[in-house]
């Protein structure tokens, strides 16, 4: 996205964990239609094809059409793929925000309570915005996280101030703590989480003992 989204969004963690048993987050033809047009030609045209890697690599896989909904709203599709951005850049940003995160965490609990109250209205606003903005795409700012009891939730809940990563830029060291697999790239730690229907990595604090 090139401009600031009107319906700005932040991300929180919905702790959807079975242990808790509950959701934490909680033409020409008849009818006057033309049969002509560029797409009707079905031609590959004269442009050169661009090569690229398969899904999971260079190309983004989410967008409005991925939602397959008549309403025109997309699930996860509003967020353009961010894999092109340098991981290092975001990691730096993450570190710069480290001091802010503690405050965010403190704020998160309050935010979360408010979230529960406002969620439905927020989503309605989102839907309205989306209708107006016509998939202007781009990244949403990511905000404070939510902490819940279960291990995997706590792991993610401590740091969702950054958007999800679709790939890691290293061959990570993996550590399993409390049933959760942590992925380490340098000083950064990640766990896996669903985001918009796909499995992504989200940055977290190091597991206990690391």
């Amino acid at each position: 996205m090139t401009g600031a989204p009107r319906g700005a969004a932040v991300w929180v963690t919905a702790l959807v964990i079975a242990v808790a048993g509950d959701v934490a987050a909680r033409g020409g033809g008849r009818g006057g239609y033309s049969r002509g047009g560029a797409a009707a030609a079905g031609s590959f045209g004269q442009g050169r094809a661009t090569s690229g890697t398969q899904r999971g690599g260079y190309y983004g896989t989410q967008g409005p059409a991925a939602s397959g909904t008549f309403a025109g709203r997309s699930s996860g599709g509003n967020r353009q793929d961010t894999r092109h951005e340098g991981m290092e850049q975001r990691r730096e940003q993450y570190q710069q925000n480290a001091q802010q995160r503690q405050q965010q965490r403190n704020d998160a609990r309050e935010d979360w309570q408010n979230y529960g109250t406002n969620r439905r209205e927020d989503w309605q606003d989102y839907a309205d915005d989306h209708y107006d903005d016509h998939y202007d795409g781009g990244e949403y700012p990511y905000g404070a996280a939510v902490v819940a009891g279960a291990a995997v939730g706590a792991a993610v809940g401590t740091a969702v101030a950054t958007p999800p990563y679709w790939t890691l830029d290293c061959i990570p060291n993996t550590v399993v703590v409390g049933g959760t697999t942590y992925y380490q790239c340098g000083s950064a730690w990640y766990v896996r989480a669903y985001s918009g229907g796909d499995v992504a990595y989200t940055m977290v604090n190091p597991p206990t003992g690391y």
Partner: protein
Amino acid sequence: MRQTRGALLVVAVLGAVIVPSTAPGEENRAAARLEAMATFLAKAQRLSVTIDCAYDVVQDSGEKIEFGERRVVALRRPDHARIDVTRRDGSRRGLLFDGTQLAVFDLDEKVYATVSKPGTVDAAFDYFVNDLNMRLPLREILKTDFPRELKDVLGSARLVGEEQLGGAATDHIAFRGHTTDAQLWIPRDGDPLPKRIVITYRLAGGQPQFEADLGAWNLAPDLPDTLFTFTPAAGAEQIPILVPRREKKP
């Protein structure tokens, strides 16, 4: 002779302007066909269908890339559903709902997530998409409120033509929504179950399309409870779902 030809040409042009582009009654026929389809689907107590989907993803560069998947849907109303997805790259994932819990799994990533969500399939599907921000293409046609959802667009419905699709005679129907254009092919004979659906996101950059070919419709499938019971695959790890929180407009 030349004057006669000119006069005929003028008449022909005028005729083309004056004669309505759509024959009388075709709007009604298109709307009626859509309504019949929606009502039929909404009343089905159980069904299974295989949906071969393809969708465009417009890249940041503007390049349009197509992805696709096969979705095998099993629906036992009011509160059981299962969708198994195989993407073109071979990866397998799915969704199960047993009336109390939503479960999603990814066999290749060896992960799953579960959410407690007692209630109907309709509510679970809406929650899945609107609250959990997950993908569930064509969920509208799987919900019992499909006829009501279609009402707003019936006025724009038009019959494009009668077309052969997969050896079957179909009505090709188009309608416009607020942000999308939709086309459906509904068989002229037998049950009004859609054979093909194309949705164009006309307000999105690059106007990407979602296309689905629907087949293997079965309105009396054998759907035992066990089909909807989620059991994590051996070694699968439970992971959370990241949910977007929308800030209210100032």
